């Protein structure tokens, strides 16, 4: 029987319940992707300073070799996932930036062995005390690890001790609240020991006393797997699995903190200001691999999904693999598809160029047809705002999306700021619920970009 404490679910204000659609891939074990022929390593795969290339056109590179770096504090190096030759260093399609500099590497041979996941090298009794916090931070930095949940913030910056802001609580994000995506779920199920090893290393580096692993209650198998592994393992006192409500955007770090700690990160600030560090489960797995085995972050698990995909699944692929090749590997689309989205349908970015490469933050590729999107939504048929207030009720940050969006629409950025536009986390809940089909999130995003440009133009 469930104890009372198990039945109490953490949650946050607002949010929405989109259809999960996770059944397409949740039972698909992580498999190898296609034999890579060519990869494109973007020099900007993270928040912070863009890497400088450290190789030239024509250079031979080996798997795991660092090929780009930047000495700035907030940055992360990039590595080659394969043995091969630098074919080109030029502007390439980029999921977030549109275009960005990328290093194109041609594989040395067509039969090169694929890099296999290393989860079997980790046991429950992993001893993290062999490594000092400095060693862990160095290894994480050198491996180029960034937050793999989506934002791509360099992990070293997050876990490094800062005397001004002591860290108390480490929260591990196993929510995976976006519909369709299952890569983190599979990582928790299959690489359980590796994830827990990474969590223990992160705890040692940050010096946090308390570790809370937040998992949504639609993944009871993952909750059980993590709990069981923690019980078997040594030195897991103070690490707790917290069952939280299945609701989007539960995996947003501000919402996750609200759900598990009942605290709110002040607007415009980041979790370290209240002594909290949030790390994604896949990031933890990467930390374990980097510290214990010295492997840089060159591969990740990507969910390729959507009702139109012939063979959806979860794949272990090199960073830099093109999205088009990945879709072809899954049998391509079986019916007319309207959108290819990098990420999930709520926050993901629609792309038109299928040569766009996978980056460290690409958790999923979702193919959507008109049926899933809805005809009116696809055609962007907007009707007038009836001021119903559903966007306000859905907003996890308690903003007034309709007022902000309409201020931006009519060009009044000052008014948009009076409604706290910059606090928006761009989760998309307001657009999702809007009965008038207004792209509220789209307008707010535009407003933020316009405001940033305005600030740049006017010095001081």
């Amino acid at each position: 029987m469930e104890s009372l404490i198990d039945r109490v679910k953490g949650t946050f204000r607002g949010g929405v319940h989109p259809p999960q659609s996770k059944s397409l891939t949740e039972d698909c074990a992580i498999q190898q992707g296609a034999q890579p022929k060519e990869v494109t390593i973007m020099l900007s795969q993270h928040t912070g300073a863009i890497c400088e290339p450290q190789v030239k056109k024509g250079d031979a590179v080996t798997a795991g070799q660092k090929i780009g770096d930047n000495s700035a504090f907030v940055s992360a190096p990039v590595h080659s996932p394969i043995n091969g030759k630098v074919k080109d260093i030029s502007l390439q399609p980029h999921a977030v930036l549109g275009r960005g500099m990328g290093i194109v590497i041609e594989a040395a041979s067509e039969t090169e062995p694929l890099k296999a996941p290393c989860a079997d090298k980790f046991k429950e009794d992993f001893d993290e005390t062999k490594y000092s916090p400095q060693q862990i931070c160095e290894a994480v930095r050198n491996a180029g690890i960034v937050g793999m949940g989506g934002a791509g913030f360099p992990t070293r910056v997050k876990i490094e001790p800062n005397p001004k802001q002591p860290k108390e609580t480490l929260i591990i994000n196993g929510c995976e609240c976006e519909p369709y995506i299952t890569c983190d779920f599979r990582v928790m199920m299959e690489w359980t020991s590796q994830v827990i090893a990474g969590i223990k290393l992160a705890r040692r580096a940050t010096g946090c006393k308390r570790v809370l692993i937040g998992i949504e209650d639609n993944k009871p198998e993952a909750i059980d797997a993590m709990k069981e592994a923690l019980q078997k393992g040594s030195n897991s006192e103070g690490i707790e699995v917290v069952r939280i409500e299945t609701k989007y955007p539960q995996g947003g770090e501000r919402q996750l903190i609200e759900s598990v700690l009942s605290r709110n990160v002040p607007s415009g600030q980041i979790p370290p200001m209240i002594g909290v560090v949030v790390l994604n489960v896949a990031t933890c797995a990467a930390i374990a691999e980097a510290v214990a085995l010295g492997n840089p972050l060159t591969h990740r698990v990507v969910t390729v999904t959507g009702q139109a995909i012939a063979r959806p699944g979860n794949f272990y692929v090199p960073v830099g693999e093109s999205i088009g090749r990945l879709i072809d590997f899954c049998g391509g689309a079986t019916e007319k598809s309207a959108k290819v989205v990098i990420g999930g349908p709520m926050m993901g970015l629609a792309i038109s160029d299928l040569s766009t490469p996978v980056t460290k933050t690409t958790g999923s590729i979702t193919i959507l047809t008109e049926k899933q999107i809805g005809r009116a939504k696809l055609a962007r048929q907007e009707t007038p705002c009836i001021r119903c207030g559903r966007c306000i009720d859905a907003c996890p940050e308690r903003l007034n999306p309709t007022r902000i969006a309409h201020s931006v629409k009519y060009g009044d950025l000052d008014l948009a700021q009076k409604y706290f536009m910059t606090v928006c986390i761009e989760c998309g809940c307001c657009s999702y619920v809007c009965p008038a089909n207004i792209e509220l999130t789209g307008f707010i995003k535009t407003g933020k970009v316009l405001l940033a440009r305005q600030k740049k133009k006017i010095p001081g």
Partner: protein
Amino acid sequence: MLSELVITPSPHISSRLTTRRVMLDVIIGLIPAAIAAVYFFRLYAVIVTAACVIASVVTEWICNRIRGREKPFESICDFSAVITGLILAFSLPPAIPWWAAVIGSVFAVGVGKMVFGGLGANIFNPAMIGRAFLMLCFGMMMTTWNVPATMDQNMPQIKTTENYTDARTQATPLGLAKQAIKSGKGSEIVNNQLKDLFYGNVGGSIGETSAIALIIGGIYLLVRKTITYRIPLAVILTTFLIAMFMSWVRPQSNISAWAHICSGGLLIGAFFIATDPVTSPLTTKGQWIFGIGVGALTMLIRLVGGYPEGMMFSVLMMNALTPLIDRFTLIIPIGGRPNV
């Protein structure tokens, strides 16, 4: 299969809820009141309702044509004009001539809504604008009531301005209540009618007499989350508390709080008129203020003003205050004001 890919901002899926669906829910919520209206006022109810709905829809179409809209029929499909027609009809006396109902509807949609730019842009509730217009133009018609068919098959007409002592055939309960306030006695006549008020077996406007039908419709809207509980609760509670206090102070001249709630369009106002999202505040706090304001103004008009009902003018007054209320009840983000 992956050609002509569409690029739009995220999110790429939606809840599939449409404005039309929201409006359709309001119409469904009004069905119990419509059934009650036909039951109590027979053909009168059918004629006036049909006149109002048809006139409202046609007016919207003509306005769209005049504005040069490419698809003048498109905005009809959101059903908002139908709702305006229905609510206006339900707030009119049964015996009003069909042509007067048409004039009211044309004014409601044309001046109350379309001149502001159509759905979502109007300041005042269009149906209440139409009713106010009729009140000013045809004062006599608007205060002439019928005895419901369930009491007298002939449905004789009675005017509020005359004096009545027979509880079975009086004008409206609130008309009687007004007399009680003036004369200082007679409130028990209305109080004894509470059962009739609850079922709708009294004189009054077409769709507002049956409390039970309006409550059923209101609960439907609440369950469907078409409206929030805040405005109806604030309106009803404020009215109830003021009425309670007054009937406690002077029981002879003031009818009971329950009678106030069940009469004079208070329930249709609380559930269907004051909750119009376009003309009520967006913010939670604002909605409480709005509801309390509507309730308090209604009671002020009923107790000291010149009209027996008061719902219409209080809603219109609070509509005018809505932009101001929204401005003064700014929503603060959950993480507090950012330091900028």
